[in-house]
């Protein structure tokens, strides 16, 4: 019954992220069945897969929003799955962008960006607001700094969410279907930001259905199926010459 785990190759030195035999079960339902991969610094990894394949769960294990049942996760040299790890400190170096933005509804765009700076990094109010303003400006949001999330379009909200993560100066950015909840005409502006970010050398793990984005911006693609990595390889090569039937079927459906 238990599937043979992939050979546990040692993590290449200097990996930004390395995941070994990651498993996650909810009760008797095994969602991740032994996932192993590495992400090099500045690498952009796209994770594709049908819904229910475990890709979102896998991503949330990378900052321990989901607690793995077994296996290890190392990000920036810190083993997050060690019992004694200071997870809050580790998370400040891992940015995460959510499908539904999850902006703090009671705060302005600027306060969303500065909240963790002030209360986690203990940056002064003035300095935090300076960082916040420059992050918002960088994402073309300077004019909505004082707006509440409810008064922003979906695309603007998601860009504020990206600014909120970037303000913490993370080493790694995780994107959990960041454009799936957006109206089609708003997807473009968020993908543009992500593409620029990829170009700037940020290490990124992107769970997405945007094959176009994967083809253009990703260095590598992982295809997940039923809690396992079914394909793992160079983005263009894999997308232009999909090896397995399951992957070909998936691409045919998405495209």
């Amino acid at each position, binding site marked *: 019954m238990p599937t043979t785990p992939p050979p546990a190759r040692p993590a290449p030195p200097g990996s930004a992220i390395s995941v070994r035999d990651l498993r996650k079960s909810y009760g008797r339902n095994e969602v991740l069945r032994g996932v192993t991969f590495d992400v090099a610094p500045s690498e952009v990894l796209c994770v594709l897969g049908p819904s229910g394949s475990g890709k979102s769960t896998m991503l949330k294990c990378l*900052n321990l*929003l989901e607690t793995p049942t077994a296996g290890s996760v190392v990000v920036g040299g810190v083993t997050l799955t060690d019992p004694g790890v200071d997870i*809050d*400190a*580790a*998370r*400040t170096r*891992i*940015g*995460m962008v*959510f499908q*539904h933005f*999850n*902006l*703090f*509804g*009671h705060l*302005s765009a600027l306060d969303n960006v500065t*909240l*963790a700076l002030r*209360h*986690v990094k203990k940056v002064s109010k003035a300095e935090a607001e300076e960082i916040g303003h*420059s992050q918002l*400006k*960088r*994402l*073309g949001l300077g*004019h*909505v700094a*004082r*707006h*509440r999330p*409810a*008064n*922003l*379009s979906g695309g*603007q909200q998601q860009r504020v*969410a990206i600014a*909120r*993560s970037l303000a*913490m100066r993370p080493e790694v950015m995780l994107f959990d279907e960041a454009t799936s909840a957006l109206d089609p005409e708003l997807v*473009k*502006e968020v993908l*543009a*930001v992500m*593409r*620029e*970010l990829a*170009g*700037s050398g940020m290490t990124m793990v992107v769970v997405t259905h945007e094959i176009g984005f994967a083809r253009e911006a990703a260095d590598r693609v992982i295809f997940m199926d039923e809690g396992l990595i079914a394909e793992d390889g160079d983005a263009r090569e894999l997308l232009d010459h999909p090896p397995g039937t399951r992957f070909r079927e998936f691409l045919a459906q998405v495209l």
Partner: protein
Amino acid sequence: MGRPYAASADGTRVNGETKIGAAVHDFFHTFFDWSEIAGALPSLLGEGLRNTLLIAVLAIIFGLVCGMLLAVLLLSRRRLVRLPARIYVDVFRGLPAIVTVSLIGLGLPAAGIRPFGRSPLGYAVVAVGLISAAYCAEIFRAGIQAVPAGQMQAGRSLGMSYLKTMRLVIVPQGVRNVLPALTGQFIVDVKESSLVYLLGLSVGQRELYFIAQERQAASYNASALVAAGLCYLVITIPLTYFVNWLDRRMREGRPARAGAEEPLPEPALAEG
């Protein structure tokens, strides 16, 4: 000025035409005797209103603070933390207010525990506040649970601890969810402040109900109670509208033009 209604009613009776006229007169005389009301107003407004507000406001603050602490305990993942809070809430919501006030205000001093000396007001504040805390805890818990789970995930993903995310993200939004429900509790607290009469009040400590009930007992006329009732309404009805106004203001936040026409900036990500 005098009593225009009473005068005409007296007239009816003197003419002795109907028993109905006399009954109507007695009814209005009992509840709306202007001289009774006028006589009661100075102490109602001067002494009573002040003491009622004092008890109610302090009890409300007590209830809000303790209620919020209890709500956070009720939401803990640890059963051992939840359990004492659960028991507290069930007990104080389940007891009649009159029993709680008696237990605190008569029981504690009898047991030699007299943090407020012989002043009944302090005991009333604690008793009403303890009851209020139990109800506030349930209101806050419901409001906090209505905050989407993604808010906690976002807070944690930024490196904020569970408690920090609670304090800075979840609780502020949870409170906003339940402001109208809290108004109901504030009104209950104002009304329950009257139970302090059980503890016996001397001049200067009397609140609205106590003053009115003293006058009613002396004159066998309920007009002072009507006057006291009006004083309660003068507190509770504006309170409702004040909280509704506050609620609207917090919901709307800063007035902002939604998604003002905004050119997609190029490049989306400038040099950083």
